[in-house]
């Protein structure tokens, strides 16, 4: 038995080149996590008035950095690392050309660095650059061109990554013409198909409108149009964050629990549903926008509710697979099997706690999605309360937990301390329970999100669920625990990287109980699904976009630019150049004198 394990090769033994890139992508992701967590704790203590170490006007620079680094950089870099691993592993084949792989990694890193620099420059008044526009960058608030350019470069990098995986898959398909697409590869490809559709809108918005506008080529943009294009992307991006977590819950969690996935076909159905439904719903973020007809909002709401279906199905399959694992380990009884699960493993406990929070997040999400209830909580701190459960825990905690499982296989180094890992995931859970719960409660009182000083001079908040101040304390304690948890995670990982390499860390993933052969072939017809997805997008967006352009014009109804970037820059340039020109003129004149 032990010999068999010794003989089994880990991922890094088999695919050393791919393992390197997976490690690089994960480390980039964790760098973003650390930066994001530092900004997270600063803003938590600031807005709760526990400690204000920055001027309130800098709060928005901090918040932009927190949003961009965590929601865009941390999530996407982890995704590209995980997908590279999942695709290579499940196809059991190296990527086509590792130079292409490094190229997209480098492009993404450069893009994110450009955007990051433009944001962080906002802290220094010496540099005439800032991007205090938050990660939603609604025009006519304007960022430095470097911000938009970096985002465009980053997205293009992710497109090349997708192409790299599709090409590798096609090469595999030529080698295995009659085989079903392996489940993990199927998940990677459907997610990327969704990503191409979704990100095309924000890329268009940035390249056609925002970047030229920030460079001064056009004077104004249509704020409703760029906002709508943002949310065309902004909703599916939620699923783009979530899909790697789903991939882990479907394919890795059951194995850690001691069992295997319940049903491969249903997993495929779920991913197809996400591909189809996640884009034509973005308008649900604009329920309270003027200039968009109620009918469009209504259609978006209906689609959104159907989008609950794949998540509800996932809840079932994941719980069933874990229960199966527990029963394999000897668990019995209606709920007794719960005690037969490997709760001491940080990767298991972390993912289970993440899933539990996701259920809570799903509940508060249903409130958000109801159009009229939405009036109560729109733009209140309820919203960050909600998405710290979803992306901030269901996704982030799953990623951290999975790292305890995956890192040894991509590096041949055992985790430095699995007990610290266990403490870390539990601390995250407790911290988030406190912070998110209090945020929901403050949201019900009408406390806004995205503000440095939510206490206003002229009035007090109504008292519900405990006072405003008490809830602030809860948020501050919760945020501090989250920060501590992040530090534990990173510390543990850094120490792990210092460990010597060993062998015998390989883990295999068992096939599903009900395998792919039970899945109708049509599920693997990606062309068909992409076609339907595009049709749904056109149906959902053609009319609203046409109506918006019709109302406000492609470039907007007489809207200015804030702050006015280029004018002062040009003025400065002009005043710097004029004396030089004068001097040159004088010199020329005296030269002429001399010559004469």
């Amino acid at each position, binding site marked *: 038995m032990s010999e068999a394990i010794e003989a089994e090769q880990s991922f890094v033994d088999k695919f050393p080149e791919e393992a390197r890139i997976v490690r690089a992508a994960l480390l980039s992701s964790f760098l973003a996590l650390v930066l994001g967590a530092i900004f997270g704790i600063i803003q938590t203590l600031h807005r709760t008035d526990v400690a204000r170490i920055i001027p309130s006007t800098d709060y928005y620079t901090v918040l932009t950095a927190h949003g961009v680094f965590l929601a865009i950089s941390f999530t996407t870099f982890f995704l590209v690392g995980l997908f590279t691993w999942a695709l290579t592993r499940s196809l059991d084949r190296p990527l086509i050309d590792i130079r292409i792989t490094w190229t997209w990694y480098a492009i993404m890193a450069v893009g994110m660095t450009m955007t990051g620099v433009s944001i962080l420059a906002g802290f220094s008044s010496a540099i005439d650059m800032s991007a205090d526009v938050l990660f939603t960058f609604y025009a006519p608030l304007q960022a430095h061109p470097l911000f938009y350019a970096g985002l465009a470069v980053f997205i293009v990098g992710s497109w090349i990554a997708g192409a790299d995986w599709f090409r590798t898959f096609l090469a595999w398909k030529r080698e295995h013409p009659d085989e079903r697409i392996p489940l993990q590869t199927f998940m990677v490809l459907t997610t990327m198909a969704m990503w191409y559709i979704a990100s095309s809108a924000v890329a268009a918005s940035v390249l056609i409108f925002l970047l030229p506008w920030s460079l001064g080529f056009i004077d104004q943009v249509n704020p409703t149009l760029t906002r709508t294009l943002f949310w065309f992307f902004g909703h599916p991006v939620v699923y783009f964050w979530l899909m790697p977590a789903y991939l882990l819950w479907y394919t890795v969690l059951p194995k850690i629990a001691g069992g295997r996935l319940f049903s491969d*076909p249903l997993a495929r159905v779920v991913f197809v549903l996400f591909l189809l439904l996640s884009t034509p719903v973005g308008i649900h973020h604009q329920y*309270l*926008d003027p200039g968009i007809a*109620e009918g469009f909002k209504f259609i978006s709401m209906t689609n959104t509710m159907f989008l609950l279906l794949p998540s509800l199905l996932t809840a079932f399959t994941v719980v069933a697979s874990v229960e199966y694992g527990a029963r394999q380990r000897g668990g019995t009884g209606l709920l007794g099997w719960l005690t037969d699960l490997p709760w001491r493993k940080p990767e298991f406990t972390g993912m289970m706690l993440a899933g539990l929070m996701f259920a809570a997040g799903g509940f508060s999400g249903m409130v958000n999605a109801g*159009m*009229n209830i939405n009036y*109560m909580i729109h733009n209140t701190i309820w919203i960050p309360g909600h998405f710290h459960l979803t992306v901030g825990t269901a996704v982030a905690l799953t990623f951290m937990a999975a790292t305890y499982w995956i890192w040894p296989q991509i590096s041949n180094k055992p985790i430095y301390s699995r007990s610290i890992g266990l403490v870390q995931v539990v601390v995250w859970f407790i911290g988030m329970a406190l912070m998110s719960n209090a945020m929901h409660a403050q949201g019900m009182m009408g406390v*806004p999100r995205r503000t440095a000083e939510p206490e206003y001079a002229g009035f007090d908040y109504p008292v519900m669920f405990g006072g405003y101040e008490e809830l602030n304390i809860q948020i501050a304690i919760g945020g501090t625990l989250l920060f501590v948890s992040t530090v534990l995670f990173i510390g543990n990982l850094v120490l792990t990287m210092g460990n010597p390499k060993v062998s015998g860390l390989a883990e295999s993933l068992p096939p599903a109980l009900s395998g792919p052969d039970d899945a109708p072939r049509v599920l693997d017809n990606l062309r068909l699904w992409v076609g339907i997805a595009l049709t749904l997008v056109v149906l959902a967006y053609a009319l609203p976009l046409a109506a918006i352009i019709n109302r406000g014009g492609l470039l907007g109804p007489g809207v200015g630019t804030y702050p006015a970037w280029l004018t002062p820059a040009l003025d400065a340039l002009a005043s710097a150049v004029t004396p030089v020109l004068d001097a040159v003129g004088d010199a020329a004149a005296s030269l002429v004198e001399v010559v004469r």
Partner: protein
Amino acid sequence: MHIHAYEKLWLAASILLILLLIGSVTYGAVGPGVAMVADSEQPVDAQALDEDERFSEPRVEQVGENEYAAYIVAYQFGFEPSPIVVPENSTVTFYVTSRDVIHGFEVVGTNANTMVVPGEVSDLTVEVEEPQEYGLICNEYCGAGHHVMEGKVHVVSQAEFEERNGGGDGA
């Protein structure tokens, strides 16, 4: 495709839940008449609001028996008029626009809450009851002074309204 019996049950329950949710929202929209901010108002020129008949002078005026219109301009970083004074036991429609960036308009502790987009007018009708002071805040990030952007909505007695508003004819 083989689907487990429990799974079928769960699937049916999920679809039922979704239909219920859609139903409840539909009921909310057509039943008690929770009106939505939508596209009923024509676009305006955000940079020429001082030439606009409604927004050159932000104000509250009577438009019908017990019906009032409040024309409000949001800007970096405040609301006009300030405070917004409306009479008790009346129906008030807020027409809100912005002369610079996107703002929010939230009467704290109520569901009077909308986005304010330059070039667009958000309309929002509420029933106001007894005299009370409400906080008004911008809940959409609008620049470095966002956190100081606040206002007030005062619901006052009919007499006081007329006194403060010079007879309620909107002058």
